[in-house]
């Protein structure tokens, strides 16, 4: 080293940003972002300055990688979201959110299986026991299977679960590795591969990052669904709104299964690597807050809390009377847009989404309690007490009085 940064300095024509990103990522996964050698950081800074604007992926990647150096370290850069999320954005997104979630989970399972069989030496500290890998792989495969009736790669579901229950068998692991879904789009595959930039070298941080990225993906999908619901309510299409709200609830319930996978993370490993994630917290998640805001403008105390203080642009937006499900619901009620039966269905869908979200928060709180104990959160909150406090928040608090 720094072969990676040196590679990037070999000349503009030779700058294969993707290749460099991959090799650099491997290095980071061997030493931890927090422990990068000063010389390596210096080379990366120089490479970024020299090749800025040459490749958007490389720009985003280096900004995430150098966040501690730049003083921009946050939840967004920790999860390398600027590297990963462009596959979901733009006028013609490369992927649907559900597919990205599946690819992330599949990538996690590959990491686990390959480590179990000594096929890589990345993030080598605190390898889980074979029994724990079996548990993790079983839960991960079950999550993938829950998304569709057919198994990944056309494999029979029962066969896949049987393989997942004995991953210590090398042949089983090989079959699983072959069956797990992966993107065949080079740019998407590159972004996924280059988006785990751990602060430390603990094996379980890979799991942590992939699950959190999956949640960001889920909340991106929820934003799209809620925008559809708002449009449905505003244009008199009750069924469109109901379907979108119901799908949003299903989406949250399905995502809740990711907590079961995360529950296999070692609390000891978590407490160690989170020492170096200070300043990066899920409380900074913009996607989650956008989802929340699309449901309805939060109560003033919530809007003025640390959660929204972390995303000032949304805080401002929230104070400018934005289009939300709650707002559109009130207008549709006032304009008597729907029949009694349609209102009943809509109210059930709203209640279903509220209930699914409450369940998600409760599970999050319980898992955090087990992992964190009484430790403060990394986003300068009180950690678990904060999560307990927000259990009282309701997405549709302002809808209730209008029924």
């Amino acid at each position, binding site marked *: 080293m720094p072969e990676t940064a040196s590679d990037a300095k070999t000349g503009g024509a030779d700058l294969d940003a993707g290749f460099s990103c991959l090799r650099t990522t491997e290095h980071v996964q061997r030493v931890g972002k927090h422990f990068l050698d000063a010389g390596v950081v210096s080379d990366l800074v120089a490479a970024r300055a020299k090749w800025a604007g040459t490749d958007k992926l490389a720009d985003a990647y280096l900004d995430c990688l150098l966040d501690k150096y730049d003083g921009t370290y946050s939840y967004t850069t920790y999860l390398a979201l600027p590297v990963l999320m462009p596959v979901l954005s733009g006028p013609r997104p490369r992927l649907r959110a559900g597919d990205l979630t599946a690819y992330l989970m599949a990538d996690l399972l590959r990491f686990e299986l390959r480590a179990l069989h000594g096929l890589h030496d990345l993030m080598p500290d605190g390898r889980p026991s074979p*029994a*724990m890998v079996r*548990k993790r792989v079983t*839960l991960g495969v079950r999550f993938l299977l829950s998304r569709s009736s057919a198994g990944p790669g056309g494999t029979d579901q029962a066969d896949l679960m049987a393989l997942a*229950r004995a991953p210590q068998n090398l042949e089983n692991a090989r079959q699983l590795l072959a069956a797990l879904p992966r993107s065949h789009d080079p740019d998407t595959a590159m972004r996924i591969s280059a988006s785990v930039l751990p602060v430390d070298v603990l094996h379980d941080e890979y799991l942590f990052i992939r699950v959190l990225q999956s949640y960001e993906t889920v909340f991106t999908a929820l934003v799209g669904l809620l925008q559809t619901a708002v449009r449905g309510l505003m244009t008199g299409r009750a069924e469109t709104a109901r379907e979108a709200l119901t799908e949003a609830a299903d989406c949250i319930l399905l995502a809740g299964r990711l907590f*079961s996978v995360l*529950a296999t993370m070692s609390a000891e490993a978590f407490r160690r690597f989170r020492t170096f994630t200070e300043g990066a917290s899920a409380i900074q998640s913009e996607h989650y807050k956008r989802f929340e805001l699309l449901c309805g403008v939060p109560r003033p105390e919530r809007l003025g809390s640390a959660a929204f203080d972390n995303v000032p642009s949304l805080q401002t937006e929230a104070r400018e009377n934005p289009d939300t499900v709650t707002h559109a619901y009130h207008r549709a009620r006032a304009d008597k847009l729907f029949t009694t039966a349609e209102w009943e269905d809509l109210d059930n869908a709203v209640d279903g989404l509220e209930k699914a979200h409450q369940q998600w928060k409760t599970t999050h709180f319980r*898992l955090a309690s087990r992992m964190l104990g009484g430790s403060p959160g990394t986003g300068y909150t009180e950690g678990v007490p904060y999560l307990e406090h927000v259990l009282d928040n309701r997405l549709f608090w302002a809808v209730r009085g209008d029924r």
Partner: protein
Amino acid sequence: MSMTILLLERQILDHIVEKFAVPDDTTPGTGWEDFGFDSLALVELSLVLEKKYAVQVDDVELKEASNVAGIAALLVSKGVSSA
């Protein structure tokens, strides 16, 4: 009922009451839904049981077992005597 099952029921129940904050009056026959055990709780419990009794057991099996008594019977069927 065998002593092994009774002993296992006691051990599992003690653990659940202590770690999962379920009511003190929970009995081996109390169903998961009665004290709000969700899928995460069952995964957590499976991790504990695997470690404590050196046996493979997943959350789906625990859900099907319905309650502590069912788990004790499940563990015995897997060859567990007691910790």
